[in-house]
């Protein structure tokens, strides 16, 4: 089967040939299968944002190739635009990109740029609004009259309305309250399941990632440090520490319990698993 994303020996250098030259990505090879839900984590400046901007052709590799759904993004530089629709990207704080008079028009911006018919656009906007959990009666409101959380959702809907086969989100939960976070992640998971889409979630929050993804890629200083299931990645707390990251809080609690001599499994990374473990310790009673 064709891979959703396939990156080979990707290197990206900023301001090449000037005193400000910095290598953001060095010789990265990485691939994502169709339908995977991948978390990309890394410290600030590890190259996460640079990496994901290669997937929709916003950045051009200094060397190496990026294949999206089996096609080389830069094979024909004039055609790069079509990859913007295949790999839909939600930037950090996407609410700052809202500009139209009504929420409807703003969400329709992407589909309109795809050159779709009006009826199709309308259908997609309604679908996208439902995916992000907004009620359709806000469609006629101005996006600037919405609350912070609603703005964030409307902006994400603007990308989902393009029905991208690959959805990339850069810190979609930054600055939201806990309920808002859980809610947005839930809706993203729904899009992942219903559309059988490939989803890439870039985040700092170990808790977010532990709950949702089925694979984690850790970036550090422009290279891939480790890659595997959450269980595998979180079983190496020292390695994560070396990249300026850490395991989820629950895992830390369990690591400490083990240190203190309790017979617990330390591959716990969500609260649900923790509850199960602890109740098993107490003999099945919660």
């Amino acid at each position, binding site marked *: 089967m064709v891979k959703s994303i396939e990156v080979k020996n990707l290197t990206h250098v900023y301001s090449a040939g000037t005193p400000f030259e910095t290598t953001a990505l060095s010789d990265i090879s990485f691939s994502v299968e169709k339908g995977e839900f991948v978390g990309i984590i890394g410290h600030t400046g590890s190259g996460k944002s640079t990496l994901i*901007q290669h997937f*929709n052709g*916003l950045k051009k590799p200094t060397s190496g190739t990026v294949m999206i759904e089996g096609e080389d993004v830069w094979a024909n530089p004039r055609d790069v*635009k079509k990859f*913007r*629709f295949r790999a*839909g*990207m939600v*930037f950090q704080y*996407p609410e*700052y*990109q*809202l*500009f139209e008079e009504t929420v409807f028009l703003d969400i329709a*911006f*992407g589909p309109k*740029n*795809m050159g779709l018919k009006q009826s199709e656009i309308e259908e997609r906007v309604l679908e996208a609004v439902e995916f992000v959990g907004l009620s359709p009666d806000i469609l006629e409101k101005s996006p*600037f009259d919405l609350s912070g959380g609603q703005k964030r959702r409307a902006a994400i809907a*603007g*990308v989902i309305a*393009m029905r991208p086969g690959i959805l990339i989100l850069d810190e979609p939960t930054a600055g939201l309250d806990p309920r808002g976070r859980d809610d947005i992640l839930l809706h993203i998971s729904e899009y992942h399941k219903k559309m059988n889409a490939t989803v890439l979630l870039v985040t700092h929050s170990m808790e977010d990632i532990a709950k949702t993804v089925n694979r984690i890629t850790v970036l550090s200083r422009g290279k891939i440090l480790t890659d595997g299931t959450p269980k595998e990645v979180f079983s190496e707390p020292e390695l994560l520490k070396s990249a300026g990251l850490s395991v989820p809080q629950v895992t830390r609690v369990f690591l400490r319990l083990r240190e203190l001599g309790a017979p617990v499994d330390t591959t716990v990374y969500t609260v649900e698993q923790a509850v199960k473990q602890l109740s098993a310790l107490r003999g099945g009673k919660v």
Partner: protein
Amino acid sequence: MLQDITLGQYFPGSTLIHRLDPRVKLVAAFLYIVALFSAQGPVAYGLCLLWLVLVTSVSKVHIRLMLKGLKPLLFIIIFTAVLNVFYTPGRIIYEFYFLHITYEGIALAFYMVVRIILLITGTSLLTYTTSPIMLTDGIELLLNPLKKIKVPVHELSMMMTIALRFIPTLIEETEKIMNAQKARGADFESGRLIRRIKALSPVLIPLFVSAFRRADELAVAMECRLYRGGEGRTRLKELSLTRADYYSLAFCLVFTALAILSGKIF
């Protein structure tokens, strides 16, 4: 494209030029402009060039950086040159229907181009070597006497400080928004002029909204720290003139006098 804007940029350093009092540098820039505009004949221009070269070499600003500042103005420079070549009356060298090139035209065009280049590189040296805060401090102090006739000097200089401070921030913000809209298929690079202008509204509207938001936040932050204008306000760093400042000032005065006089003598 956006990274090419060097206007108002400051490149930190610790050379003599960087350390000079901003007031001296402002007066020096003013004298330099006076010298340049009153210059007549090759000797005067030569003196200005020598002045610029001396200051540039002391300041250690890279020559490539100086030339980069000229790039956005290339069109104006060429336009001026062409206009002067064709529209100056005098001894005709070459004629083609209604176009005639004169000896005086070529000479004037040459001097105009030299003048513009010297003017831009010379004055950009001021912002390259002076931090925006020092610069506005210097302007405020120089304009202080105007307070007597009720000119809001402090307010004006604070506005300038804030404006300069936010140039890089807004450039960064523009790039972010452009990328976000490109990700939704916005196209800024193709189409006719009108389409391109229309294509900018998805960038400009969010940019204005965020500029107002920032202004609002900044105002609140300033009020929280009890900012209430210039009256009775003291400085962390008091500017005071050193011996180097006086020497530099004297040096600039001599050069200006020479440049003006040379036109009269030669």
